[in-house]
């Protein structure tokens, strides 16, 4: 078979094309497969207790940063504390999702005030808030305090303001809440134990 000049060039062109294709990266690259990095490699661990039910499972909270001053530690993962004798590292669906509670969009961030009849919140400072609350309490207490009852017995009670205490807050805040509220003579006082 006589190969005409033209055919010869065609074959060479094919060869050049093929080899350049390889140069283009056609060569079957060995797909490098590396393993996913371990997310907790350098996180800071803090022990805590789940705030939900009364099993009070032990938690390990992993936060960013190594407590360096310039790094604001944010909790990015929570799992069970394997040493805790009750939950032994397990968490229920609520506890396993605690990160979404800490970072919930519903978290309140600053004191807010709603004026009577108003349609929206107004941001206020802590000092304004404390002053306003104390003022309201004092005015109501001074006006409605009952020193003695009809039978003349000393009762020293203030019945026109009530207080519901948080059953998910710590014993320490519960203790100082009770001590403070009782000192005002308040009797309409309860917590979730009632429901």
């Amino acid at each position, binding site marked *: 078979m006589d190969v005409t000049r033209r055919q010869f060039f065609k074959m060479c062109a094919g060869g050049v094309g093929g080899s350049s294709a390889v140069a283009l990266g056609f060569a079957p690259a060995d797909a490098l497969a590396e393993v996913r990095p371990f997310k907790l490699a350098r996180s800071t661990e803090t*022990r805590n207790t789940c*705030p939900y*039910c*009364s*099993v*009070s499972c032990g938690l390990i909270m992993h936060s960013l940063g190594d407590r360096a001053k310039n790094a604001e*530690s*944010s*909790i990015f993962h929570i799992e069970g504390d394997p040493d805790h*004798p*009750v*939950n032994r590292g*397990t968490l229920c669906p*609520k506890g*396993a*999702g605690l990160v*979404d*509670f800490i970072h*919930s*969009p*519903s978290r*309140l961030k*600053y*004191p807010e*005030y*709603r004026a009577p*009849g108003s349609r929206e919140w107004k941001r206020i400072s*802590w000092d304004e808030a*404390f002053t306003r609350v104390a003022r309201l309490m*004092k005015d*109501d207490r001074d006006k409605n305090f009952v020193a003695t009852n009809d039978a003349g017995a000393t009762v*020293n009670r*203030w*019945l*026109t*303001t009530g207080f*519901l205490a*948080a*059953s*998910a807050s*710590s*014993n*320490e*805040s*519960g203790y*100082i*809440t009770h*001590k*403070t509220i009782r*000192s*005002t*003579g308040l*009797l*309409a*006082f*309860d*917590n*979730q134990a*009632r*429901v």
Partner: protein
Amino acid sequence: MTNHWVDIKNANVIIVMGGNAAEAHPCGFKWVTEAKAHNKATFIVVDPRFTRSASVADLYAPLRTGTDIAFLGGVINYLLSSDKIQHDYVKAYTNAPFIVAAGYGFDDGLFSGYDAAGRKYDKASWAYEMGLDGYARVDETLQHPRCVLQLLKTHYSRYTPEMVSAICGTPKETFLKVCEAIATTSVPNRTLTFMYALGWTQHSVGSQMIRTAAMVQLLLGNMGMAGGGMNALRGHSNIQGLTDLGLLSDLLPGYLTMPREQETDYQGYIDKRALKPLRPGQMSYWQNYAKFHVSLMKAWFGDAATRENNWCYDWLPKLDKVYDVLQVFELMHQGKLNGYFCQGFNPLAAFPHKAKIGAALAKLKYLVVIDPLATETSCFWENYGDLNDVNPATIQTEVIRLPSTCFAEENGSLTNSGRWLQWHYKGAEPPGEAKPDADIIAGIFLKLRELYQKEGGVFPDPILNLTWNYRIPRSPSAQELAMEYNGRAIADLPDPKDPTKVLVQKGQQLDGFAQLRDDGTTACGCWIYSGAWTEKGNMMARRDNSDPSGLGNTLGWAFAWPANRRILYNRASCDPSGKPWDPKRRLIGWDGSKWSGVDVPDFKPDVPPGDAMDPFIMLPEGVGRLFALDKMAEGPFPEHYEPFETPIDTNLLHPKVISNPAARVFKGDLEAFGKGTAFPYAATTYRLTEHFHFWTKHTGLAAIMQPEQFVEISEELAREKGIKVGDKVKVSSPRGFIKAVAVVTRRIRPLQVGGKTVHHVGIPLHWGFTGVARRGYLANILTPFVGDANTQTPEFKSFLVNIEKIS
């Protein structure tokens, strides 16, 4: 709980009734599956629904909501009639042999001394017959017709298996299978444990339901045993803590009680509570009431509390009645309240009859909300269509919403159901300007005190003299507060055995409540928590989880009250001669000079076995109460009363007395309760495992797991009403309506009750008009405004509704 979470693995029979442990306490529930796997335990669930607890149960018994006393009364009758009780235990450790006074009686639904007009009892006749020696009379032969055991037999003779099946709708043979399984634990070396929660507490006869189970445990000799006891699975992580610290209308820390206005005399107040033994040789530990009360007053008012002013007795407000939440919102609804604080509490969602709650809040002058989340209560004045149909312009309440930190952003301790106080550490800064609860309370208090100092005012003394000696007044640290409630010596405390030696130096932390004095030389914020932060440091932060006995008593982990004891009444785990009922599960024993073992003995350590002192050291009788004297509002023996909204409109035991005759019902409410004609279906509200009350609808992950409000109905009811799976339905009660998706399931079945078919409608309560989950109706739009006769816990679990498909 009398026992604790890990102890459940030691049980031979486990009953989840009046609760749904697998869904509400999953990680605690592991100890049920451990008991099944490693202790061959039988697991029984008794519930109106076939819950996720029932999915792993060996035996499931359906029953109509609100009829638990009938069921358990039937169990008592079965145990007594088939003589399946632990006789030695019952004779020695319960008040079975005590003889009841002649005046006591029960006839056709009412106990002796009923005052119909006042809807309450004159309980004088519910007492022991006292002997000349000043002690209660007993009949060791247990034959006396008026001894407690005989009265018990006659009272529950009416609760035959047929009657139980008629009232509860439980098939008779299923009920008998449950009884047989329970009866197997009447032998000394087998124990039964009850795990219950709101399914029992949230009824108008809730407290009595729990008492009936406690009586079953006494008859079977399971109280004080490893793998036994009465185990309340509490809701919130620190609801046990706040109950222990007494944050209730009529309590002081450590279950001390507030004075009534009739108790004008301090000594009378103390004597009424420092109960003298009713049988010779009993410990009756409340005799030390004064030590706890005086120490509390010294902790709160410091030097201002002196013997002369009866330790500031008059600075405590005096009760005319208990101001529970129903009473408070009734007054608020009448416009008698001006201010209200909601600290980490969402009453608009959590309390019954949401319409009344919203109307009441609208009458307030000011509302202060302290919460990490934007709750419905804080926006009760905003209009959310028919989810919260109000006009803000007409609501003149001033609302102040303060952001508080959550668990991850503060140090402190929480008390779990098993009475363990466990310390936790702050892991991150709170968002924005949120502050810890203690700082918010301090901020309010300091401002209030400052106003009284500057302007004077009515009776400022308790406020001005309240002890506040924290290093940073506006930010009291968790450590200081823990040390305060642990208690410390105000002066050198001489050792009672050898007065020359000093037991505790002035200013030092106390080791435990045994060191408390009533002469003002000790200060202690909560006597039962004494021992939490001693001179040896923060006992609540201990992390030694070793379990030498294998029974799960990790005494080196954290601190349990009282005195780090893990299983209450554990003296009753041995017979009177000190031999453990079950040698394989020995808790304590007498080692010749004192009691010791794998748990802190719940007994006077140096009193040898065979002595007259009995295990229930807090009670004047020293023994468990099958007959509850005058301590309960509606009777010394639990009696089945129908819920206030009953689907059968009668009481099969005594038609003349249908619902709880001693429960407080506000004016107008009795007539307003729903009747079976207009609202034919028995409804109950409950919790799902994916959500925590009204809290996790704010968390993305929980909202993904249960995104949208639904109600559960049986296939039969669905067919009857033409409802298919996934249809939208409207559920209404006399107080309002909700709309939800219909989950049609085989797990709820119609029950045959006294010849009638009763359908149940199950209503999970996790949705509301704030949060990231799909918006929904507050389930408590439907629930009745009536509570338990003793605790006033609202009857969320049994009421009547109607249900229709929304076309």
